[in-house]
């Protein structure tokens, strides 16, 4: 192949590369050196307290927690946060026996969350479409905010 032809081929291939070039390297989130933490729900026959690190759930001794599951994509799984607000903490689905047992929900509440006026919300699954409703009477002490509510789906929602 003579020099001119080689050069032409190189020009054509370079132009093809320029056209197919994209900016972003597909990078699976959090697939790094330490394996990702498996999102396994905490289950049991009759749990009184479940510590999910970012939140603790407790029921009366007469009731039972059957399962607490972390919801990694609350907006996709349920509905987005109310307009103008955002999910600032983890979202959990708490299943109890009886189904409507009263649960004390305590979220870790560092200054970063207080600055965003973050509040504990419960998903109203009876409404169509579902809607996040703030649980009143939150008590924020020593870096923790707690409320009492019927079992369901809970999240910490505040300003973005």
């Amino acid at each position: 192949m003579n020099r001119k032809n080689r050069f032409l081929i190189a020009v054509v291939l370079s132009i093809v590369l320029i056209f197919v070039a994209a900016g972003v390297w597909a990078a699976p989130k959090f697939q790094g050196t330490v394996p990702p933490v498996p999102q396994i729900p905490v289950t049991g026959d009759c749990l009184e307290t479940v510590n999910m690190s970012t939140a603790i759930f407790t029921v009366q001794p007469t009731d039972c927690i059957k399962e607490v599951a972390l919801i990694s994509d609350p907006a996709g799984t349920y509905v987005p946060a109310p307009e103008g607000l955002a999910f600032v903490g983890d979202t959990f689905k708490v299943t109890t026996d009886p189904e409507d047992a009263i649960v004390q929900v305590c979220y870790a509440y560092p200054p970063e969350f207080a600055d965003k006026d973050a509040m504990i919300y419960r998903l109203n699954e009876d409404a169509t479409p579902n809607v996040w409703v703030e649980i009143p009477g939150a008590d924020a002490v020593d870096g923790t905010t707690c409320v009492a509510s019927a079992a369901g789906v809970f999240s910490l929602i505040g300003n973005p």
Partner: protein
Amino acid sequence: MYPLFLVLILGFCYSLSIAPSLTWAHFSADGGDLISAAITGGVPHPSGYPLYLILARGFQFIPIGDLAFRTNLLSAVCTIFAALLLYAYLLRQLSDHPLRQWISFLAALAYGLAPLVWGQALVTEVYALHSLLMMLCLHALSLKESTLNEWARGFVFGISATNHLTAIMMFPLLALGSDGKLLVSPAVLFKRFLGVAIGLSLYLSLPLRAYFDPPVNWGNSSTLEGFFWLISGQLYHQYQFRLPLADVIQRLGAFAGFLLNQYTGLGVLLGIYGLISQPPRRVLIPTLWMATVFLLFAIFYGSSDSQVNLLPVWMAFVIWIAYGLLDIFSALQDRPKLSISLAGLFFAALMIRIPFLFPSVDASKDFRARDFLNHAAQVIPQNSLVFVDGDEQIFSLWYLQFALNQRLDLAIIAEGLLPYKWYRENLQYTYTYLMMPPKDKPQLSDIAASNSGRAICYISHDEPILCSQNR
């Protein structure tokens, strides 16, 4: 003269942009793990990187900057040596051309200034050393038998794999002849693989390190099972060939973009031109093999930072750029002044590019790790159990505790490693006061309950640090 300029230019660029301390820039989240393992005589994440640990420990004795800066220096030095070796390699291959020094110099400089290469020269990671060793493998293959013993040739390949396991993808090249023959005889191959085995034997230093129960001790390689788990990289087999097709296609497009970003449109044109100008077989086969296997590995490996595996691809490509330049200068052989002017123009283009690249590679102002550690040290109460998720956060805290000996009151618990027995054992002897529940898969709440009275903190990636009293 040319090597001196190479050292001065790359040294100047790297010294202005090197990370001054622990950094997360340029995919270097593992820095805290590697530094801590090197200084404590420990074993970092698979595959254990025994060669890197020895060299890093040597650099940690240099009395300038902090511990992380000294280890960052190793990467800068390795990259400069890789560029020098590339220069020497090309000089040998282009031995009959009057402008061979210019061509080799320009190619080595272009390599050292390619953004991905430059970035890896500034941080604590194994990839700068990996590039140097890959260049050493190419060099070893090209040397005649009278210059390098066959076992020594194999040794270079073996020792390369004790830094980064992907170097074993280069082993098939050992079947290539070095004196113009395509394949070597079985006797020569045996000698070379004997050399490989001797080089690989450095992995045996890992069980010895693990035996002394260092705080960073992945896999506890003092047991046979742990040793094979570690050196086989079993933990990361889950990342291989698991990428969805859409992501693979996206990565192919991104590769084209990266290539243009490393060497510009002109460099890419020259590289492709050089490749189809048919470099000699002794250059073409090894570089084509190296570029292909590392490109495929980078594309199909499912980790979030797999693009750093493209460094050997850039190295092969810049060798093709050199052959592109060679062909152009050969065409201008009877016009020496024009050739020199053109070489000068290429050099000027490389130099002019430096200030434009600088902001994107500069790690000298990356204080994210330092800020995270300062904040964590401030807000985490005394004697807390700290559950951590995320490479940056876990390894930075290891660096704080194991390398700098600060906040020794904290028990740092990497959540993602809790399912592994070796890690739970490691926690027991590192934090002797820690009560571990006798379960195969302890939940965080089990550990918290077994250690009542200690505050619990939770760190997940870049989310706020959450702490509460554990009653």
